[in-house]
């Protein structure tokens, strides 16, 4: 039992990160019907932004501190938001009027460009993200039996929940959120209603990128190994999470993220009892993707909206 609970905690912990990234995929898709394949790389950029802030502000050597983590987290979110807006402004906006295929290929190009710029500039060598929570020496908090939860896991849960609630509030309770929903409903009508759609799209990219950056910094508190290619697989899995939950649907992205994280961890933990080796962890997410597309293409919470002709 305690092992099961532990695996659940581990899984939800991984899932919370997927959820944060999946939100960015889903928001951009909701507004532009674009799968932003560069989003996983924005997550990586966020982690590196945090790493370099910590390095140059001298926080990396200052030792564990919650304040440092907050500074690094906010700094990384701001930098990633700017990067997201730049990508939108210079890569997606110019081709927005062309077919969706063009934008999709552009997204793949941007993704490869970011990865390779990083590899060329700093090399693919993994970097060690500073440990702000003292995880390296601090024992975890015991729940019952063997089950335990570490400080890093608690912080990941709390911060992701707070960010998701904040997003929900922005989308449903603010004027900007109303505008975002209007753009998502119909871009041209929204424009006719006097909404500055370019600004709203830009803002959507900024918010999505900031959430991904938060995911990058948080995950680095648990897995301190960051490298320029870290966003590829994680980004793809977060994309699957968004599809699983119903792409374009915000609560769906969160649910999808948590489910993928849990599914992955359970395959590692219990897979061998039903003949699946722990090496299949990465295959699981994509098997789920195929199943979803076959059985329920709109995802768990997605609604099948009729395309307006």
């Amino acid at each position, binding site marked *: 039992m305690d092992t099961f609970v532990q695996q659940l905690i581990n899984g939800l912990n991984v899932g919370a990160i997927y959820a944060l990234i999946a939100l960015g995929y889903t928001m951009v898709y909701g507004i532009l019907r674009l799968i932003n394949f560069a989003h996983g790389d924005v997550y990586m950029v966020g982690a590196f932004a945090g790493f370099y802030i910590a390095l140059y502000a001298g926080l990396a050597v200052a030792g564990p501190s919650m304040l440092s983590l907050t500074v690094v987290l906010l700094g990384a979110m701001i930098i990633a938001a700017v990067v997201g807006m730049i990508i939108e402004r210079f890569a997606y906006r110019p081709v927005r009027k062309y077919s969706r295929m063009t934008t999709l290929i552009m997204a793949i190009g941007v993704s490869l460009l970011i990865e390779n710029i990083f590899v060329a500039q700093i090399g693919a*060598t993994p970097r*060690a993200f500073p440990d702000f929570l003292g995880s390296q020496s601090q024992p975890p908090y015991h729940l019952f039996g063997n089950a335990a939860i570490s400080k890093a896991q608690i912080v990941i849960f709390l911060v992701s929940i707070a960010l998701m609630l904040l997003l929900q509030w922005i989308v449903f309770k603010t004027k900007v959120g109303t505008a975002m929903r209007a753009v998502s409903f119909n871009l041209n009508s929204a424009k006719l209603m006097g909404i500055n759609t370019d600004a709203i799209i830009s803002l959507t990219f900024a918010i999505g990128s900031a959430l991904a950056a938060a995911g990058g910094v948080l995950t680095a508190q648990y897995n301190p190994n960051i490298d320029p290619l870290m966003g590829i697989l994680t980004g793809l899995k977060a994309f699957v999470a968004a599809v699983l939950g119903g792409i374009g649907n915000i609560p769906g992205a969160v649910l999808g993220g948590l489910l993928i994280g849990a599914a992955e961890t359970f395959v590692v933990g219990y897979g061998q009892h039903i003949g699946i080796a722990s090496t299949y*962890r990465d295959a699981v997410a994509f098997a789920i993707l195929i199943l979803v597309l076959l059985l329920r293409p709109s995802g768990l919470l997605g609604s099948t909206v009729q395309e307006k002709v």
Partner: protein
Amino acid sequence: MKRTILALLLITTLFASFACERRNGSGTNVSDGSGEIVVGYYGDLTGRTASFGQSTKNGVELAVDEINKAGGVMGRKVRVIVEDDQGEPNKAATVVSKLVNQDKVHAVLGEVASSNSLAAAPKAQEARVPMISPSSTNPNVTQVGDYIFRVCFIDPFQGDVMAKFASKNLKATKAAILYDFNSDYSRGLREFFTRSFKALGGQIVEEKSYTQGDRDFSGQLTAIRSANPDVIYVPGYYGEVGVIANQTKQLGIKAPLLGGDGWDSPQLWQLGGAALNGDYISNHYSVDDPLPAVQKFVADYKQRFQMLPDALAALGYDSMKVLADAIKRAGGTDSAKLRDAIAQTSNFPGITGSITIDKDRNTVKSAVVLKLQDGKFVYDTTIYPEGMTPPATTSAASPAAGAASPASSPATAGPPPSPAKAGASPGSGSNR
């Protein structure tokens, strides 16, 4: 007008220099008696295991500088051509092809990771260019062909060392294993550790795998925790191991982690920090070794690269010294003669112990067990292969070693090995 002339001049110079280099490159290969000795080095300089490639390269360069400062090998200077394979097997094969076919190197040094050596070795073998791997420990590497050698011990021994240490020194009876599924190195160690540990009466209570680049190991570690092992064997590379150590502590697991030489990197400490305290690894040498030869090497390396040499640097250094010694004995760089000379290497006093190449082109030597404590690898014990007598090894590698002689006249490659012994092995070696 002026600019055009300048441009033309530049282009001409460029072509001229290319042409010269070409002629020089192929020229040295044909006439093996003169000209500089060209050695190819390939390794992971920018990939996930870049610390391995960089350290080894540093070690090779240090050795080359010492050799050249002392007048080269038989008056011929040594030049190293460095290639980066980014830690990917297919790129390793490509760069070695380039080294042997295009650069016409006389010998190749590399790689660290066994998967990369295995991919690249056939290229050296086809071209009949001797290749010495400084630190690939998977047994299959040298079985690629009779031109492939190594100067480190092999995994059956390394796995055996940790199994013995766990069983005898740590009194462990239950072990769990967490290994890298895609790595020949990791799978090899897992196999040999399991075999030895079971033979010593131990039990493997849980076994889980991961793949390089994974970031979350909590699922595997939770399963391992519920099996309640005395020790956890993690024969992986530092990038993942640092994170694994971290997550082990976050799950409240108290059993020590045991590893191999793949852990040896300054980066390990940045990733794992205090979480690594109390873990053990098997390795090729210890910087604490009081032998003067080792201490001189450590001091020289520190002066030049501002850090302590890890085992890979020491092996890189040894591989170059063994090569230089073989060239001297072969009387030149003729590939067949050089191959035979490397195969005859016997009791060569290296930094990582006495190096004797056996009939399988492997090196048999002792391993050290190091304890991880507060950012340092602290010497714990030395474990010898079956049939090797401890004191003999120590004395063979002691003050007589070439590296130990004063800087004014460093011996090019240490004292020549006893010719009597050297004559015994070539037959069996070249028949393979």
